[in-house]
């Protein structure tokens, strides 16, 4: 399936529409609560769906998937951190905050990938969904460790009691993050609820799913374009990180998906997408609390303004190619 035909999925077209509307300075704006409603709906639906299937899937492979998800979540930020520090474009604390985002994942990108695979008629395993749930958080811990390590090197001493980054609350919040709980909770519900009663909510979680995803991406388009406007704050060197980091990560993801987990083209593509995507849900609030010295507009512009659009429009078809190539060989 060519990159062009990928652009003919309504989900992607609506992302483009939102992006365009903002560029043309249209007054089209989403009410804040609508954005929230859409992500709640998407997380619940994908959770019920995946949980229902996982309830009938192989537990061992599931464990493997969880293990490798954590490995990805812990290693990617470290790679990102050293690339950023090497680039000399940001201080080490901003590097830590940015890197954490790339170890985590973006549900929006993941769902777009699923829409892409479906309209391309590609089968995919359901395990990557657990990985999506698992990967939201570990990167945050690494981010915090990198940050306090940088602080020590910078010789920034903090009043122990008040140092947020060691504040347990930040760690707890990394795991009790709303979207993580919603996703895992819905998966469990989908797995344990009586099949008969799950049937009753299928029309809600399946039939209108694609339409809700379109509205969600329309809103993300507006958001991404708004972020792009902060581009100058970021600079070209940093922006290129927002493109090269995901591509690099996608290779690592594809290797794990195919060789470590033995997935087919669909599943391998999804793992590559997970590796390549950058968080804009769980990580930013954690970083704002725990690494207040870092500038939010830097990591938000990179993950929302550069990496997300790149992944949705160019990345996904590319990762699909990479997966096909790996699985083929």
């Amino acid at each position: 399936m060519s990159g062009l035909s990928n652009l003919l999925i309504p989900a992607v077209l609506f992302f483009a529409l939102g992006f365009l509307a903002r560029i043309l300075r249209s007054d089209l704006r989403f009410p804040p609560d609508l954005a929230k409603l859409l992500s709640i709906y998407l997380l619940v639906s994908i959770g019920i769906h995946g949980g229902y299937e996982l309830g009938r899937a192989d537990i061992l492979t599931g464990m493997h998937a969880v293990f490798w998800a954590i490995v990805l979540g812990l290693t990617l930020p470290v790679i990102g951190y050293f690339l950023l520090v090497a680039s000399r474009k940001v201080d080490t604390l901003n590097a830590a905050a940015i890197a954490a985002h790339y170890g985590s994942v973006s549900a929006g990108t993941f769902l777009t990938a699923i829409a892409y695979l479906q309209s391309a008629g590609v089968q995919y395993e359901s395990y990557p969904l657990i990985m999506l749930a698992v990967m939201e958080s570990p990167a945050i811990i690494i981010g915090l460790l990198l940050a306090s390590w940088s602080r020590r090197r910078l010789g920034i001493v903090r009043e122990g009691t008040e140092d947020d980054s060691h504040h347990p609350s930040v760690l707890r919040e990394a795991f009790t993050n709303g979207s993580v709980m919603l996703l895992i909770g819905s998966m469990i519900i989908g797995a344990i609820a009586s099949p008969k009663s799950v049937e009753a909510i299928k029309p809600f979680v399946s039939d209108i799913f694609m339409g809700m995803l379109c509205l969600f991406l329309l809103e993300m388009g507006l958001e991404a374009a708004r972020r792009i406007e902060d581009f100058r704050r970021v600079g070209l060197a940093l922006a290129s990180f927002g493109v090269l980091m995901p591509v690099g990560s996608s290779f690592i993801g594809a290797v794990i998906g195919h060789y470590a987990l033995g997935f087919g083209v669909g599943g391998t593509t999804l793992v590559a997408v997970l590796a390549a995507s950058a968080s804009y849900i769980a990580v930013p609030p954690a970083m704002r609390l725990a690494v207040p010295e870092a500038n939010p507009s830097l990591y938000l512009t990179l993950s929302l303004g550069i990496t997300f659009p790149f992944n949705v429009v160019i990345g996904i078809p590319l990762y699909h190619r990479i997966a096909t190539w790996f699985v083929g060989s």
Partner: protein
Amino acid sequence: MRRLEQKKLLTIITARELEKKIIETARRRGVGGYTVVQASGAGASGIQSGMLDIDSNILIYIILSEQRLIPLLDDLEGMMARGHRLKAIVSDISILPRKPPAATSV
């Protein structure tokens, strides 16, 4: 107007993530109540459109006495020193004192 009490109104403008943290701090300083309003805005750290949770601002209003204000401002200064972005605005107000009716003695 003798019946009005002189108080201070502390208005804090910051990101929503800090809501819990600031309110806990205020409680520790013995503040009895607060009022929070959702907002959007822009400043040195860029636009806070309020469209996503990650960039929504809030206004926290705290009515309090000058004695309580001072230590709370210290805490806020400490947070700002650690890099947290917030605006702490103090103004003089007069407020109708609360006279709870007999019946609510639960």
